[in-house]
Every structure is written in C-alpha cells, then in structure tokens.
C-alpha cells in the first residue's frame, strides 16, 4: 500500500505521544497506579497490526497501550480508561493493564506474564471453527518465554495448527532481569522445538516488523500453523513509572543512551517528506489533545456500580458491608 509508510508513522507517533501524555497524567495524579510505558517499542505493535485485518484478534500485555492503539482503539476512550473514567473503553474497570476493545478484536491487555497466548489460541480456533477467516497475534515480552503456560500454548497452537503469531518483544529485560540471566537457549529455539517457524526481526524498524508479520500471516492464512517473531527492541523508559521516583540500578546509562539512538519514530519518520511528517504530527497532537480533554471530562464511575459486570449471567454478589 502506497500510504503504508505514512500510516505506520502515524501509528508509532500516536503511540509515542500517547505514552508521553499518559506519563504527564501520571505525574499530575490523573492516572493512579502508574503505567508501563511502551516508549521505544512502538514499531512492533505498529508493524504487526499493519499486517493484520480489522477482524483479526490480538492480545496485549501489561505494557499494552501500544497494542490496543495499533489495532485501532480510540485514543480518547483508551486515555479515559487509563484515567479510570466511566467513558473509558472498559468503563474504568480495567485501567492501563487491562484495556480492551472486543469490537475491534482486542481481547484485552493481560497483566499476567505469558497468560494470553493460550487464551488467544482458543479464541482464534473458535472463530475459525465458526467459519471466520481470522488469524491472531499475541504480544508478550522476553520474560514470558520462561513461563510454562506460554510454552504449553506453543504446543497446543502448533499441535492443532491454530494460526496465531506469537510476537515476542525482546526488550532485553524482564522488569530488571536481563535476558542473558533468564533465558537458557534461545527464544526462537523454543518455537522451533514445537515445529513453529521462527524469525528474529529488528523491532525498531516498523516496516521490517510489518513485512515479517505479513509473510507469516500470509502463510497462516494459506493454512499454515502458528509462527513466532522475536522482535528485538529496547525499552526507552522505566519498566513502570514508579521508577521515575525510585531509581533502580540495572541498566547502565550508556546502554540506555545507545538503545535510545535507534528510535522507531525517527526511523519511520525519516522515510517521509518533512512536510508530510509535520502534517501527521499535527494531526496526532490534535487527536491527543482531544483525547486528554475527553478523558478528563469523563465522569468518575459511581461507587454503587463497583461490581457491575462481575457476572455476565446477571448474578448479583453480596456486598461486603455489615
């Protein structure tokens, strides 16, 4: 698609600025509990989702705003969700780590590391069983590749040939644990052990991620089973915004500086004429200004409804009072 470079840029820029605005809202106290910033990793969500259809399914992680936005979630409702407002995508019941929009195939950010792979595998399997031509992409970090639940999901997906793209965002650290201190063997080797094709891709380049995903998705749509992409990336900011006030000594400053040099927003932006980039930047700013206004204008949920939606069956839980 001719406008693909522009769209990719728009997406990475949107995620970048969304995260920066969200951090401001953390600092101002409008977002409580903090966030896990996706800064630096934008190229992966943008690249993967650019190769998916609107009807395809994805799951994100605790560092999940980028996944949700790249799949097409409304930035305003997503920001309202982070701010805990009734107007949020989850009516303020999920927050940063659980933003979901089932109407666009986002089956939720999932904050238990390694947990979503099996859920997405089941969802894609079920949709295809009903005759829908969908594939799925499930994002997880390098920390997840040592979770048994995810490895079990690799096995089920491969065994039953469920077209799920397992997208490992290898940012080098599981919170503070470096990959080399945690991963025996390799990440792609895990996939290969289950008979899954696996590729390493430069996660800082949105177009490379998109191309690798498109190739995998084409094979999957043609009847192939699951695949894995290990996108090498670098987290520009903290694991969580609490690190902004508590300094944790685990990444050498020179490493952080070097990591930040390969910036997906710059890499993609450099592919556009400056005039185009400026137009996109202005659009993104306008979108996010409106998103923040929408979020902060939204009503806080009524505490009387704190347990709304606990049961889909309509069961009403007993309250906790005396």
């Amino acid at each position, binding site marked *: 698609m001719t406008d693909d470079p522009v769209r990719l840029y728009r997406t990475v820029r949107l995620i970048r600025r969304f995260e920066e605005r969200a951090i401001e809202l953390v600092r101002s106290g409008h977002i409580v509990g903090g966030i896990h910033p996706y800064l630096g990793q934008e190229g992966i969500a943008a690249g993967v989702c650019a190769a998916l259809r609107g009807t395809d399914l994805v799951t994100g992680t605790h560092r999940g705003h980028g996944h949700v936005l790249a799949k097409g979630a409304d930035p305003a409702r997503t920001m309202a969700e982070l701010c805990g407002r009734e107007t949020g995508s989850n009516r303020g019941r*999920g927050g940063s780590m659980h933003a*979901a929009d089932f109407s666009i195939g986002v089956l939720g950010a999932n904050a238990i590391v390694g947990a979503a792979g099996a859920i997405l595998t089941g969802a894609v399997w*079920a949709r295809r069983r009903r005759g829908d031509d969908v594939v799925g992409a499930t994002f997880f970090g390098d920390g997840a590749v040592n979770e048994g639940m995810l490895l079990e999901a690799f096995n089920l997906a491969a065994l039953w040939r469920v077209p799920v793209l397992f997208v490992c965002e290898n940012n080098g650290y599981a919170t503070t644990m470096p990959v080399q201190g945690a991963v025996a063997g390799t990440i792609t080797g895990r996939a290969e052990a289950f008979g899954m094709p696996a590729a390493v891709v430069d996660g800082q380049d949105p177009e490379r991620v998109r191309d690798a995903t498109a190739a995998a998705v084409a094979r999957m749509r043609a009847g192939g089973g699951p695949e894995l992409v290990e996108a090498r990336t670098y987290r520009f900011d903290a694991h969580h915004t609490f690190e902004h006030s508590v300094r944790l000594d685990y990444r050498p400053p020179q490493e952080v500086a070097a990591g930040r040099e390969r910036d997906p927003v710059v890499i993609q932006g450099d592919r556009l004429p400056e005039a185009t980039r400026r137009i996109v930047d202005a659009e993104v700013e306008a979108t996010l200004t409106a998103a923040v206004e929408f979020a902060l204008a939204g009503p806080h949920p009524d505490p009387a409804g704190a347990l709304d939606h606990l*049961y889909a069956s309509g069961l009403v839980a007993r309250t906790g009072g005396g």
Partner: protein
Amino acid sequence: MPRLSYRKALTRALADELARDSDVFLLGEDIRVAASNVTAGLLKKFGPERVIDTPLSEQAFTSFATGAALAGLRPVIEFQIPSLLFLVFEQIVNHAHKFPLMTGGQCAVPVTYLVPGSGSRTGWAGQHSDHPYSLFAHVGVTTVVPATPADAYGLLVSAIRCDDPVVVFAPAGALEVRADVDDLAPVPLGRGVVRRAGDDVTVVAVGHLVHDALAVAEELTGEVSVEVFDPRTLYPFDVDGLVDSVSRTGRLVVVDDSNRSCGIAAEIITSVLERVRLAAPPRRVTRPDGAVLPFAPALDRAVQPGRDQLTAAIHLCMKDGS
C-alpha cells in the same frame, strides 16, 4: 420409573447439551475413550470436533477454553483429578472469572469445569483426593456439588447454559448413587432444597454427605427430628432457603468435606448467624485443618467427615441450650 446412576446422569446432561447447542464442546484428557466413564459414547455420537482430547497441558487448555468462550463457544472441560484445579486456579480465577468485570462488560466466559470423582476415591492418596470447592466459593466462581442423579443432570445442564464460569464437583462418594428419576430437567443454580423435613435441628450437608446426613437422620428417628438441607450450589449460596429452615429448627449443624479453616461450613454458619438467633451454638463436621488425605484406607476415612462425627455433633447441638 427409570433407574438412573449419578454418573450416567452426567453423561446424559453432556449428550443433551451437545445435541441442543452446537456451540457446546468437550475438552479434556482421555475423554474420547471416557477414562472416567462420564463421556462414554459421546465421541461416537458427536465426533472428534466436539469431543476433544487434549495433551496433558491443563493450564493451556483451561485458558484455551476461556478464549473459545470469549469467541462465543461454550466449552466444558473435564478434569480427571480434583487436584488439577489447583494447577488451573490461576487460569480460572485470574482470567475466566475476571474478564467480564475488567473489560467493563464486553465479554462473557461461559465455561464449565467438570470434576467427576472429587474428594476421596479411597486409595488415591494425597494428590488425588482433594475437595477444593470452598476455594471457588471464596473467589466467587459459581460452584455446584450435586448429591443426586437428578441434580447431577440438572445442575450440569444449568452450568453449561450459564454465561459465567461454573465448577461442577461430582463427588466420588456420589458417583455410584442410583435413583428413580422421572423427569430430567435443569435445576436452577443457587437454589437449595430440603431433603428431609425435621423440627429440631437443620443439618446442612454438601454433596455425597447428603446421603450420610439422611442416613444419620433416619437412625435418630424418635430421638431427634433432623431436617436435612442440601444447598446444591455453594456459590451463590441459598442463604434465604437455609434461613427458612433454621428459623424453624433453631439449631444448625454443617457437614462439609472441606478442610476446617475457611471451609464452606464456616461461611454457611456465619451467613445464618448474621440473620438468625440460634437456640444453641452451631456445629460443623469437616476435614481437619490442613488435611492431606493419607493413603491407608483407615487413615483416609479418619480425616473425612463421617456419620459418627455427625451424630455426635447433632447430640452436642441438641444438648446445648436445652
């Protein structure tokens, strides 16, 4: 009047729901050959697309079912061993149970977890003999423990039709129960039943212990008039139904195959005490605190609630306050 076994009632419920609703499918270990004898004949009738054997990957296939449910299907998982519920507690509680609220009502997770042969099977020792229904009541997952063939059928049908996750414990001690059953029909979740009317004391018995309570009540005829209340569903608990009974008898004894501390008996007693002034302190007969079922049959029996203990508890309760 046809004679129906409890186990056969479960099979009938599965067969009827598979026939009624094409979204229902079964998932589990060795269910094609019906190792537990509950899925007997279902593979032949419904085929391998709807009766699916899984690898030994309980965590993955439990979340796979969550995903399939999110996509609109109604999975029923059979667990051969009650202790496997410990292994998948995370998948059920943290995901299946939490998704509807966390997503602000965007989804439902109608999965049924069926455990044929819960509790002691005599000789299966420490890791195959647990009865963890109190855990699911604690976290708020709908939990049923049918005592009779008619309830086994009716509650399993209702569980499958429920839009929330439901755990169905079919106690090993009840699987061989047979009864004349005229009419197989759904049994509403959350509704208890008085199995035997009495005036002096209400005995709440869970699952297979209903039959022990009825036997004890018969033995005490002429001495104590015992009412036996079978809650059938432990969560949500039919507090109103039980309060009706205890308001008449004024005395309460609970017999429950849970470990004592934080077991369902504690919750049942408290829920009654909040609303009824009893004539005597309530009593409970349970497994001991922290029980691990030892292998030798005499030891196994020694830590399960028995008829002698129940008889003694009823006598104590009658003596107190009189």
